[in-house]
């Protein structure tokens, strides 16, 4: 019972912006859309790989996010990017519109096409497992 005492602090730490989703909900949603089980290993491989279908300046997710999703990344403009792993950045995977916007933009930049629901499920599975 005693660890329930942390609950008020957790609530305080919640971002002011309306929380529209969670990592678990996203994972369930993308998995359902894909119709297959998500794989953290496949997510990691996709994230770390170099791709050739997208724009030449951004061959990989790691171009801007770095190889460690628990660390800060950096845009090509020099601007820092907050870590992707929800374990160190609780704001990640809390806003469905935001997640969809950046999957949309970044999959086009890196892969040259939209990501499939299965790929999104794999990435969310890996990032939230860290």
């Amino acid at each position, binding site marked *: 019972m005693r660890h329930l005492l942390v609950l008020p602090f957790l609530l305080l730490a919640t971002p002011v912006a309306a929380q529209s989703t969670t990592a678990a909900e996203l994972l369930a949603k993308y998995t359902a859309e894909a119709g297959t089980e998500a794989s953290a290993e496949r997510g990691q491989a996709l994230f770390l790989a170099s791709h050739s279908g997208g*724009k*030449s*300046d*951004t061959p990989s997710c790691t171009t801007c996010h770095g190889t460690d999703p628990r660390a800060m990344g*950096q*845009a*090509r*403009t*020099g*601007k820092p990017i907050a870590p992707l792993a929800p374990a160190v950045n609780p704001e990640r995977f809390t806003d469905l519109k935001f997640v969809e916007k950046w999957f*949309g*933009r*970044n999959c*086009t*930049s890196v892969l040259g096409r939209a990501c499939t629901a299965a790929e999104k499920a794999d990435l969310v599975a890996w990032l939230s497992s860290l």
Partner: protein
Amino acid sequence: MTDAPTTDTPPHAGQVLVWDIWVRLFHWSLVACVSIACVTGFLLDASWITLHIASGTLAVALVLARIIWGFLGPTHARFADFRPAPSRILSHVRAQAPARHLGHNPAGGLMMLGLMAAVLLLGLSGLAGLGGALRTGPLRALPYGLGEIALEVHETLALLLLAMILAHIAAAILESHRSRENLVRAMVTGSKQGRPGDHASRPAEAHPRLALLLIAMLAGATVASLPQDDPTPARAPVSELDPTFAEECTACHLAYHPSLLSAAEWHVILGGLTDHYGEDASLDAETTARITNWVLAHDASTVQSRPARLFAGRLDTPTGSMTETGAWKDLHEEVAEAHFLRAPIYSKANCAACHADAETGWFSPFHIRIPRETPK
């Protein structure tokens, strides 16, 4: 300071005090000020502008004080002692063994007047450039075009002054040889050896109290006539950023101010967000329209700022970068190429790493601070 004549009082046997202490202090202070202004203006980057303006202003003040001393100082400080009439200059330069002038010879006198005029005009053109082009200082109401011309004139005058200084130094060395005396040392100690046959000067009495009073009055009048408040100049870049613009456009980069580009360039950029400088930055139609409307309402045509005049409508291709333009490269040539790419700048697109006021659209030289490289 006393009203007693300071000339012709031999400190040592045969020595004559030619340059009084104020002339010497003026000379070497001017050397210091002009040196600092030259180094900060020609060699160092724009972040040194405050020191440049301070040294330049002090040089102008020194010359103005010297002009007053030229009418009220002792014999050899007076303009009357070195009137550079053409006939006198010619006869001095042509003569095999010209009569020695204890003070300035006529050619030297011409150089004195030229140097002083150059410093005054440099001050005026600098102030006009600061006012018209950078929209600050007492002349900030000047039209932009005039300010830009003033900056060109300022640069040309500075080169001219540099040439005159070199000629002045060469002449001092040459004349030292010719008259077998060390003229540079004389400008330090003030005294020269009196010789028979020296050009006779009409002795004049110094009026240091009157001179000081006039200098103080001039300084007071200058300070009093400076504008007291510094209101935002007319046609300033919009100071409050639209929240949607600020939120969406700063996700990956700083808020590039709408006044930096022309309407045509913004149309191309916002119409091509799917391929935005090498990345997909697409937004939904409603957000794009909102940002486009706001940006166009505050584009370069609505402001009078130096970046707007330098860059808007000047991109090499509609999707080109400001950092690829000749104007940008000229302004950044003092910064090593590699410095942009390493920590903590990382990218030429990261204006705010050095320009603290980048997001205001002003890019004032007063707000430049180039960070040192840090280990990543």
